[in-house]
């Protein structure tokens, strides 16, 4: 019975050990039920509004508009509680976990933003949280480690493989296999086996749905262009998905690292080939024998050799255009935005800003360009300061 279940075109599926199948089926059934449940929808939107601070603004940026020759708007997910879009997903999944009677949340994290967002949701809903985080990421995202611990989460260092996000996902999956009875694996992006890419997308599309309304209010029409960074792809799909059937140009900015030709990057859709990692058939970075490649990015949140299956489909159909933004372009955008607009972007989001700067020759004056500012940059400030010799 080759399943068409959970496929985006040919991508997606459920490539997991047998021990996880029952819990994935349980998750899918629970989610089907709950996503149509009025009470759940009301509860989630209550928390999103009164706790997380939705809706987030769509901010017109006069100086950047001047620089790029278009009407530039930022969707301000940096202003969401926790400092990134991640809380949209963690609140949804934590409520789902509670509904399923799960007593414990586990998560993987790269930049630490998803770990923080899971810790927030867990603290608020009284669910203990354990977060797997690669040792290398712990070193470069110390602030977020401390934030997680302040909220009572336990951060478990991962010392296997490249000691980054991919290995944290492996460890979380291994934990889950052994604890499916009481534990929900709160995955942080639109990756993993079905139904995760669907669930996470649904919880993140609040971004794009708000942008539709906000653009109509501000400009009387929909945007011409959407730009977002793509790690696993959750903030991007959250923005893009509600516009898929509209005449809107979409660009995803992947982590170009030291440049595609160096092989040291995280640009899965630009430089990868299809294969199976973490439960889904999707583009990934791999060697000639099918071993998963080590990646590099200046931004921990984009330092991942896989990508969501729906993005793989959107790449192949050409509906979304994906480009690779190198470390130095991202760093320059990280410095540019605060100077011009008084906003410090997350290093991940700086890739989207950099993409807009690179695409400026394609813009016309009247173009409405919406860039997803997926997170704020406080977590990256110490790292950037260190590159120039520290804070002093």
């Amino acid at each position, binding site marked *: 019975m080759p399943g068409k279940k959970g496929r985006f075109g040919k991508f997606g599926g*459920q490539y997991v050990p047998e021990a996880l199948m029952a*819990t994935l089926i349980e998750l899918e059934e629970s989610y089907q039920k709950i996503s149509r449940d009025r009470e759940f929808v009301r509860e989630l939107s209550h928390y999103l509004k009164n706790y997380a601070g939705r809706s987030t603004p769509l901010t017109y940026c006069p100086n950047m508009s001047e620089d790029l020759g278009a009407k530039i708007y930022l969707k301000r997910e940096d202003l969401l509680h926790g400092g990134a879009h991640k809380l949209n997903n963690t609140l949804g999944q934590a409520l789902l976990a509670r509904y399923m009677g799960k007593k414990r949340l586990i998560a993987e994290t790269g930049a630490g933003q998803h770990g923080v967002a899971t810790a927030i949701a867990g603290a608020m809903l009284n669910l203990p949280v354990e977060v797997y985080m690669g040792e290398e990421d712990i070193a470069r995202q110390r602030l977020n480690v401390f934030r997680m611990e302040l909220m009572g989460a336990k951060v478990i260092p991962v010392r*296997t493989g490249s000691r980054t996000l991919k290995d944290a996902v*492996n460890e979380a999956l291994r934990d889950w296999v052994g604890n499916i009875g009481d534990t929900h694996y709160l995955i942080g992006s639109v990756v993993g086996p079905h139904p995760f890419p669907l669930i996470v997308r649904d919880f993140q599309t609040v971004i794009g749905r708000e942008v539709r309304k906000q653009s109509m209010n501000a400009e009387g029409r929909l945007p011409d262009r959407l730009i977002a960074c793509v790690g696993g792809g959750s903030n991007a799909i959250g923005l893009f998905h509600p516009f898929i059937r509209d005449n809107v140009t979409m660009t995803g900015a992947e982590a170009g690292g030291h440049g595609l030709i160096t092989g040291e990057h995280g640009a899965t859709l630009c430089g990868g080939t299809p294969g199976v990692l973490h439960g889904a058939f999707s583009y990934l970075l791999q060697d000639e024998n099918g071993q998963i490649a080590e990646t590099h990015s200046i931004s921990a949140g984009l330092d991942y050799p896989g990508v969501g299956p729906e993005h793989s489909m959107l790449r192949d159909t050409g509906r979304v255009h994906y480009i690779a933004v190198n470390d130095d372009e991202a760093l320059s955008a990280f410095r540019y935005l605060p100077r011009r607009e008084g906003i410090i972007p997350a290093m991940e989001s700086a890739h989207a800003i950099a993409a807009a700067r690179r695409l400026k020759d394609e813009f016309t004056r009247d173009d409405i360009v919406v860039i997803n500012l997926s997170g704020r940059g406080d977590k990256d400030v110490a790292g950037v300061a260190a590159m120039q010799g520290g804070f002093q």
Partner: protein
Amino acid sequence: MRRIGETFTSAGRPLFIAFIVACDPDFESSVAAARALVEGGADIIELGVPFSDPVADGPVIQRADVRALAAGATPDSVFEIVRRMRLFSTVPVVLLTYYNIVHHRGISRFYREAGEAGVDGILIADMPVEESGPVMKVAEKTGIDQIFMVCETTSPERLEQILKNARGFIYLVSHMGVTGVLPALPHGAMAFVRYIREKTHMPLAVGFGVATPAHAAELYNAGADAAIAGSAIVSIIEKHRDDMESMKKALKNYAISMRAATNGPGGA
């Protein structure tokens, strides 16, 4: 009848299946390890194909994969190990791999090359029956037994699907978790063996956590047709990895002790 099925039917006793990771700690050592295990009495060799991200495996086998990949393991070297084994033995060989390795080489090519090398069965650790369509077609054509895992949480409907597709033997996962040695098998494991025993006449092999002759004896008593030791063997290899002679001796002795358990009480 194919070699795996024949081995189960003709033995007249339960079997001992030994797992090693191909090229752990290097190519020649793993050929020698397979040989020592067969000399000690292993009835089937399960050969792990090293993968960078083995999510179903605990730390012991993860470390073996790291050693094997550092030693340059590729599907070619895995097939070459099987060819070398065929020079001294006809025991069935089962590959344990992850999906991406097979997909990347091309399913047809992987199965054809495996068959030509002398592989009898393949288990893909992250391929549930729902995703097995393309692989099953190729496996049937190449005459390789496609082996599937079942565990306590496998629903009756899915179990039926698995039993319909599975060839060779059914791999029973003894407990919910990753691979690794357990101090004692969970009680549920025996009940699980008896439960599956009632559903099928196919041979039942139990793995995950199985380490000692006592574990194996318990499983045989419950009706298992084979016990699979993995991490216990890989730990022996890890411990003796710098001294091939002592590794071979330790593996052979271990296999002798496990094989003795297949003869039932007093058979040792």
